């Protein structure tokens, strides 16, 4: 089991109003799974992914990633989890605009202290893997949404994490590009990566082997 979520809750506080985003969520994900999370807007999907991806901290409950309780990790250790164990793919791509594709992909390796020549080589391989070898010297603004998202996937793979998390990775691209992206994620899953994606699109969710649904901060129904 690579991810275990126990009695997870998250409450956002906006002034005096408390907004419960997650209520007692329990979830177990095996290594090598391809999981899709669906649910209406505001049901807490992003909140759950952010906590699993160690971008955010829960109000209650525990998350184990690869056996480690994230609550007991220091700020630096959480950064290491984000860097080495989880690759995060955002709906908005979130590439660094001043850097070209190659540099964007090598950035996580830069933070991991990988030698320059080595990380440029690996970044090039990863870009080739997502079919963007000829685009590696382009800046994000010179690429289409689908291409940018493929760069973002290559970046998520930089330090060879076991887990890839995508929060509506196809939300900002057209259907065709979305299918390409899901195809790449499917390939990665076949290579052994654990994939978790959030999506509104049942067609996209169909790529996953397991689909769970959320509503009002709770998980329900598994198919």
């Amino acid at each position: 089991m690579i991810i275990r979520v126990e009695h997870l809750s998250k409450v956002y506080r906006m002034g005096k109003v408390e907004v419960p985003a997650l209520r007692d969520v329990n979830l177990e994900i095996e290594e090598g799974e391809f999981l899709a999370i669906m649910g209406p807007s505001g049901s807490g999907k992003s909140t759950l992914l952010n906590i699993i991806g160690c971008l955010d901290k829960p109000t209650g409950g525990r998350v184990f990633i690869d056996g480690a309780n994230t609550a007991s990790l220091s700020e630096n250790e959480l950064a290491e989890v984000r860097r080495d164990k989880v690759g995060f793919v955002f709906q908005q791509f979130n590439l660094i605009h001043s850097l070209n594709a190659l540099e964007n992909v090598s950035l996580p390796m830069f933070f991991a202290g990988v030698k320059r020549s080595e990380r440029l080589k690996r970044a090039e391989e990863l870009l080739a893997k997502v079919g963007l070898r000829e685009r590696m010297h382009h800046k994000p603004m010179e690429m289409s949404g689908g291409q940018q998202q493929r760069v973002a996937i290559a970046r998520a793979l930089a330090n060879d994490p076991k887990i890839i998390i995508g929060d509506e990775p196809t939300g900002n691209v057209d259907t065709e590009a979305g299918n390409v992206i899901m195809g790449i994620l499917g390939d990665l899953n076949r290579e052994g990566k654990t994939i978790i994606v959030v999506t509104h699109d049942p067609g996209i969710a169909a790529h996953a082997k397991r689909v769970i649904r959320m509503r009002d901060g709770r998980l329900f129904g598994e198919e």
Partner: protein
Amino acid sequence: MIDIMLMAYRDLSERKARTILTLLGIAVGIAAIVSLVSVGYGMQEAITGELTAFADLITVMPGKFAGMSYVELGSFTDRDIRDIRRIGGVKEVTAMMHGAAEVEYRDERKPVFVFGGDTDALSSFYVEPVGLAEGRWLRENDYKVCVIGNRVATEFFDEPIHVNDKLRINGEKFIVAGVFNKASTLYATDVDPHIFITLRAARDVLGNEKAKYKYITVRVYNINEVEEIAERIEDRINDNHGLDEFATAMTMGSMLERINSVFSILRGVLVGIAAIALVVASIGIMNTMLMAVMERTHEIGVMKAIGAKNRDVLSLFLVESCIVSLMGGLAGCIVGVILARVVSLIVSSVLEIEFVPDVKAGVLLAGVGVAMCVGMLSGFYPARKASKMSPVEAVRYG
């Protein structure tokens, strides 16, 4: 390290206007320091260089210096001069007297300050640096002959005075043998408003009361003995007058010390002004770095989300402010050196002193060092703020 610098460089070149403004702030501060200090050193060197030509000279005055002002306690006697001549190592002694006298020229009377002294000594003091506009300098055996300062010749009387004109000093007839050039600032107050005559003439013309020596100059054989002899002169004259502190015997060494201390105060003030400029600049850097953090909140969030630690973000921003301040420091040094040249040209033409700025390597190094420190210190707070941001919130921002 090189990578992080490359990244910082990219971010900086993406935001050219802001970077240039910051850079300018630092550069102005450093340029101010470098140029002011270099001009100060240059002036000091020019003046001290001129003075070291008189290293074998002791100037004895009947009074003492209290801080920057001089208090006259009396005047020297013939006996004082004889006693100084007897001190071992003394090569020559010249006494000078001076006093206000009534000068009459073509029925016009004006009080003018008259100097009497050894012609050779006066010549090396004044004629060599200032030069004569007309006529000749005094000779040892001249009697009722005078040389006049430029303002005496051109401004004091309704009609200008020229060589071979006659004037009366305290009623005695004198012939004008020469007229000085207009003196540079350094000599203007010593030469321009004065009349110079021989010691013999001065004794007779300046009434008994004022006809005592106000100024003795001594030359020694051996420059190394100059301090020691100066002390002995002071002791001897103090004995003669029965006072503990009557005479002040100044060597160029002690004069240089006084001048150097004036200059080091001056430099302190200049550096203080420049330091204020730098503080202002550092507020500017801090402000632009804070803006950079704001602008890049989203980017910082992304970097943290893909695994940057706080210290990665911190060092990225610190390196960035370091690069800016280093470039600012270097630019400041270059501009400072140019500015020093320009200021020196202006100052030397206004004050009529020949000098070039003295740009010391230490000052340049200090300039760059200070720029780096200012950059680091003022970049630290924004960098820390950037590094502490929560990744989700930062990613959601913008």
